[in-house]
């Protein structure tokens, strides 16, 4: 039986990265649906303990390559090991994080294996497919769902003829969930071959500077987010004041980030982070599908917008029709009054 494989990334501390635990959670669901095993590939140095921490996520088999040349991550050593491993294991599905590592490695692997790769999926499901041209019917293939071009469509992508079926997913899009704290998996050591020497020599890391995450809105309980409708970087400062008052984090749409209103780390949406706060206050945000993909699971949504027909209003619990620069100060005053 061809299995589901998750390529696992390591954090700077040497633990399995959150994105990979999220993918294992999703991978477990896919494997259960398909009746196959879930495998995880862990490539690094001294990573046995990290590898064992994967079992509770429902991983049946950890394929473990342990070699100093595999840490920190470099493209060619990881490519060398993983491409051989996939050829040997023949998984039907391989999942990668849409991170700076996954986005570096996955396309090179896909090119080598001549298989399809869908970037930044927001949903992964198993289903059937009928090819309209050939009339061929496919059962149990991976449906790779993502918002696509222009913003107002959701595309379902399939790779019916090639294996493995590969996809990348951004951090935070899938939920991380322990399926069974006592789940029993095994470690299968992967031999690191001599061919790694050539891969090892191609790119040398001279030095690395790791920053603490300065801005991290992923876990925020309340988010005040601004869109292009905020108008300017100066106006955007009002959101910081608003957020400070109510104890929120500040997020933004891609349009606001592209316009230079705030830092890229604040971008919420398909190509930014996905958030699930208790309350999401969308200020001057029209609500393109890529943005909604990153925030629509918020428990409560308030939209403040001059346009009563802005798409975001359709998913808002409260819509306040008005100019953000007037409404926000008004609301801040009301909030202060109610605290008294």
């Amino acid at each position: 039986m061809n299995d589901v494989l998750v390529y696992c990334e390591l954090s700077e501390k040497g633990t399995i990265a959150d994105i990979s635990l999220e993918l294992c959670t999703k991978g477990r669901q896919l494997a259960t649906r398909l009746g196959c095993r879930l495998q995880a590939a862990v490539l690094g140095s001294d990573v046995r303990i990290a590898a064992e921490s994967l079992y509770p996520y429902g991983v049946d088999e950890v394929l473990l390559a342990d070699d100093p040349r595999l840490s920190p991550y470099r493209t060619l050593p990881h490519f060398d090991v993983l491409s051989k491993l996939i050829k040997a294991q023949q998984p039907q599905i391989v999942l990668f994080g849409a991170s700076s590592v996954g986005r570096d490695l996955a396309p090179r692997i896909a090119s080598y294996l001549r298989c399809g790769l869908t970037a930044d999926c927001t949903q992964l499901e198993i289903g059937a497919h009928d090819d309209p041209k050939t009339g061929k019917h496919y059962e149990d293939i991976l449906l790779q769902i993502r918002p696509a071009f222009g913003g107002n469509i959701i595309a379902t992508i399939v790779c019916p003829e090639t294996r493995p079926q590969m996809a990348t997913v951004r951090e935070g899009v899938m939920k991380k969930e322990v399926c069974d704290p006592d789940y029993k998996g095994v470690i299968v050591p992967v031999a690191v071959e001599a061919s790694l020497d050539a891969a090892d020599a191609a790119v040398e890391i001279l030095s690395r500077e790791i920053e603490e995450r300065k801005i991290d809105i992923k876990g925020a309980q309340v988010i005040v987010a601004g869109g292009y409708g905020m108008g300017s970087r100066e106006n955007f400062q009002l959101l910081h004041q608003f957020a400070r008052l109510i104890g929120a984090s500040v997020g933004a749409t891609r349009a606001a980030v592209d316009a230079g209103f705030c830092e890229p780390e604040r971008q919420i949406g398909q190509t930014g982070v996905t958030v699930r706060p208790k309350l999401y206050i969308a200020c001057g945000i029209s609500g393109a599908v890529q943005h909604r993909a990153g925030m629509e699971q918020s428990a409560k949504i308030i939209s403040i917008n001059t346009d009563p027909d802005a798409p975001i209003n359709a998913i808002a619990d409260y819509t306040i029709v008005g100019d953000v620069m007037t409404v926000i100060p008004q609301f801040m005053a009301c909030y202060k009054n109610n605290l008294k």
Partner: protein
Amino acid sequence: MAFKIVVLAKQVPDTHNVGTGAMNADGTVNRAALPTVFNPEDLKALEMALCVKDRMPGATVTVVTMGPPRAAEIVKDARTRGADDGFVLSDARFAGADTLATSYALSQAIRQLGPVDLILGGRQAIDGDTAQVGPQVAEKLNIPQVTYAEELLGVDARTITIRRRLEHGTEYVKAQLPALVTVTSAANDCRYPNAHRMLRLAGEEIRMTDADSIGADLDRLGLKGSPTKVKKIESVVLAHKESVVLEPTESALNALAATLIREHIL
């Protein structure tokens, strides 16, 4: 041997100005219906290429793009900014290519140029954001890749030194040449077109190259060579919530603030 640089560039729809009719029924992009721009990160790659050329006497920069004939516009643009040469891979047989088929076509075109020392391209194009073509071209040519480059730190005949972006930090790497480097939006802006070059190159015809002249296996091109298929596209139908519409009056906002505090949301 002169140092040879290739820049991979793409003419992309201006995603800030997308109108109706942008998609074909088969889920591919209807490029004819859209205004176009030089993909912003490819312009950054061009600047990095021109910087390498400045440092390496005799180096040449060739721009390669794939697209409809009008993609010649970006090759012309690159020429006026300092590129020595460029051409468009344009052929109906390239149409409908996903990233795998695209990278195959580009790598075949690069092979026709003889030995190349350095390939530069934008990290990703704004119409797809996949960031796949760079690493795939590097694999097809069997050369190292350095992605997420932000700054060129040094280059000589055999190596390139780059500052690159990590998720939570910065990495300084030295790669053996030939190599492929993808450049992010944090890199230097591209220099402006040069007036003298614009005048001199005004009437220049940009070369078109077809599938036959790159020695390609036709089965690996275009829609046929693309393993990813669009199964369906759906317009997004919003599940309407019970949305309460409020006028921005003092009493309405007061009531809302009170509700949020009472329900321990704020």
